């Protein structure tokens, strides 16, 4: 299209955004892949990067707990399990904001495709499951730009158990929500927690309208579906 330059999609922030950043300065595309550990998120993102780069798109990847500012402190805090809810929530928000301002927004301005391995929805869902106030969270994450597409890789908790155990031979403390004390047994806890997370994601879906991808299927067919949807998004320009 000839006048595609002038037809930039009008990007929005969920709230007030970031001081001194105008939404119209943001070109690029922000694509988010959400899902539990074992849902195939990382594999799918790696495949998407491969595909996008070979077809001539510049990409950047971000994810949770990867900021220069606080990632190591956050890791330490989590290992000790010494932080209370609000504190942990704000610590994660700091980590997100640091990547948002230093990586996501500059890359989008430069016209890159940013692939986010989890985004604010995971952070919100984790907190909602832990009883935090949704209004408070909504205000907190008013700094986040609305992505161009969000894919939630939905896998049945029973299947997640199988995948996590076959990969690590153990279930992760936080991915099992052990801090919630739903059960003393990590296996039961994992199932309960992942079910609650899934329910919360479905609830959030109603507000944020993301694509729910049935990720109980083989990897290749998921990749195919993702490519098709992202391809359509890129063709719009």
């Amino acid at each position, binding site marked *: 299209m000839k006048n595609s330059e002038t037809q930039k999609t009008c990007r929005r922030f969920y*709230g*007030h955004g*970031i*001081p*001194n950043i105008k939404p119209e300065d943001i070109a690029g595309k922000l694509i988010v892949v959400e899902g539990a550990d074992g849902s195939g998120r990382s594999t799918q993102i790696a495949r998407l990067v491969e595909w996008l780069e070979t077809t001539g798109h510049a990409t950047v990847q971000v994810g949770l707990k990867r900021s*220069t*500012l*606080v990632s190591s*402190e956050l890791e*330490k*805090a989590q290992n000790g399990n*010494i*932080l*209370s*809810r*609000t*504190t942990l*929530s*704000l*610590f994660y*928000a*700091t980590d997100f*904001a*640091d990547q*948002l*301002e*230093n990586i996501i927004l500059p890359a989008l301005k430069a016209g890159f495709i940013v692939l986010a391995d989890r985004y604010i929805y995971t952070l919100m869902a984790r907190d909602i499951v832990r009883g935090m106030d949704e209004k*408070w969270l909504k*205000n*907190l994450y*008013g*700094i986040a730009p609305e992505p161009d597409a969000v894919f939630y890789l939905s896998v049945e908790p029973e299947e997640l158990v199988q995948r996590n155990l076959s990969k690590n031979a153990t279930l992760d403390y936080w991915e099992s929500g052990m801090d919630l004390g739903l059960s003393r047994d990590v296996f039961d806890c994992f199932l309960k927690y992942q079910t609650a997370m899934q329910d919360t994601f479905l609830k959030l879906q109603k507000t944020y309208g993301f694509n729910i991808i049935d990720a109980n299927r083989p990897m290749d067919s998921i990749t195919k579906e993702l490519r098709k949807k992202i391809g359509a998004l890129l063709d719009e320009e």
Partner: protein
Amino acid sequence: MKTFAELNFPGRLIAVEGLDGSGKSTQIYLLKRWLEAEGIKVYFSEWNSSELVKSATSKGKKRELLTPTTFSLIHATDFADRYERHLVPLLRAGYIVLCDRYVFTAFARDVTRGCPPEWVRGLYSFAAQPDLTMFFKTDLEVSLNRILEGRPKLKFFEAGMDLHLSTDPYESFRIFQGRILEQYVAMSGEFDFVVMDANQHVEKQQVLVRKLVAEKLDLKKFKRRSPLPLPPSFRPEDKMKENEEDLAAV
């Protein structure tokens, strides 16, 4: 915003606010010494002092990594950590908690840095209002002189250099502090600040501070049940009982 008293906490929280160089830290320190001497359960908490978050904050400040948003969030994290792990349990246990700076510091600073006021207030909406907030108000020149005389090298964020107000740190500091002062004054009424004339002598101010606290709080209620109980093995009567049992065993 409800106070801790209104929320039926047995403890009470007293906060001091004001510009750097307003003398508020000296005043709250002297208040603490007095309360301790009176045998009152008292705990002191300082802005930006949570052990865990501190290393991230100082890294961010040293390397000038912070933006207004992350500056705000990391201080909120620090506050939340102290609030949830120290302030709330102590207040539930009937302590008088003294805070050198409270959420109002964030309200003033972060808004001056360009964060929207509703957003910043929303972040801190989990925190209750202090039962007494003393705002140490100086003429801008007085606090500037106190700081600039004693500590000639200004830190980057302290001087508000991230706001690009001036390339000269001293000039930047002046403008920045002036704007923060405006924010404090603007919220004085909204949050029931007791405005203290911080141009006065230290001793005179402290007399007023102690009077104010004594009027506001029924201090008897916060006394320690003296003295602290000794661990069991040090109690003489237990020792004797043990000996008796030993003898009986023989």
